[in-house]
């Protein structure tokens, strides 16, 4: 499980550089998210554009990552691929998270 965090215009942009968030990596993903969001900007955007598969364990880990965010910080998502977006819709998790179409859009808006 590889996550890459970069700070950009007061945004902690975390890119998932794996194609799958599933039961095999769910716990590791949640642990990595905790350490990457402990410090740095309060506004965290998770870039999911490389992820083509997520199961309910992976979705649960994303919810876990949201719940463990330090007070005052917020976690948003960006770049959901077709199949990942479908799982979000089915489980109505698209109503829980703020979801951006892509990261370029939110980074430039933050800068402007």
């Amino acid at each position, binding site marked *: 499980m590889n996550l890459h965090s970069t700070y950009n215009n007061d945004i902690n942009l975390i890119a998932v550089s794996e194609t799958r968030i599933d039961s095999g990596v769910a716990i590791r993903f949640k642990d990595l998210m905790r350490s990457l969001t402990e410090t740095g900007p309060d506004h965290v955007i998770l870039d999911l554009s490389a992820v083509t598969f997520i199961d*309910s364990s992976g979705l649960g880990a994303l*919810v*876990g990552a949201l*719940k463990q965010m330090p007070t005052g910080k917020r976690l948003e998502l960006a770049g959901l691929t*077709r*199949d990942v977006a479908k799982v979000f819709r*089915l489980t*109505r998790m698209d109503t829980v998270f703020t979801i951006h179409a892509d990261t370029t859009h939110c980074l430039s808006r933050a800068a402007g």
Partner: protein
Amino acid sequence: MGAAKAAETGSGSASGDSSGSDRGSGDPPTRATKGKLTLRFSGATDNIRAALRQARRHLASLPVPEDRLATIELVLAEALNNVAEHAYAGTRPGPVTLNARHDGDRLCIVLRDMGRPLPGLVPPIGTPPDVNRPVDDLPEGGFGWFLIRDLTDHVDYVRHGSENRLTLEFSTP
């Protein structure tokens, strides 16, 4: 040990006389295996990815639309997660057999394991996650059965002796 990858150690043998045609190489199934697949692997979480990869490679050789493949893979993932996390929970992972058969516009997948039976011997109804609650109370799991039910056309479960047999059917227009 028990966590060896299914693609490498599980017999990727397809049914019929073309054993091994689905093994790792990316070769399409031969005519003899067209429409049918059998995978055997140990029911540990670490084996699920490889099993799904093999199943998807096989299904991609059938006249099944791409978006249906994603749906089927997700349902299989949820069902196999349940086997690893519940049927074989706390025990040494036992065997899992996956059989897929495609007839015209219908795909039928049967999963067999030798783990604990489903509680009450019936597959859970599966309710969608309750998202209308404060963030701290949001569920972090427990909606695998909802996805299985929602994304299949028919689900059937039988406890046959000490074997669990879960049948998942999909229409593949």
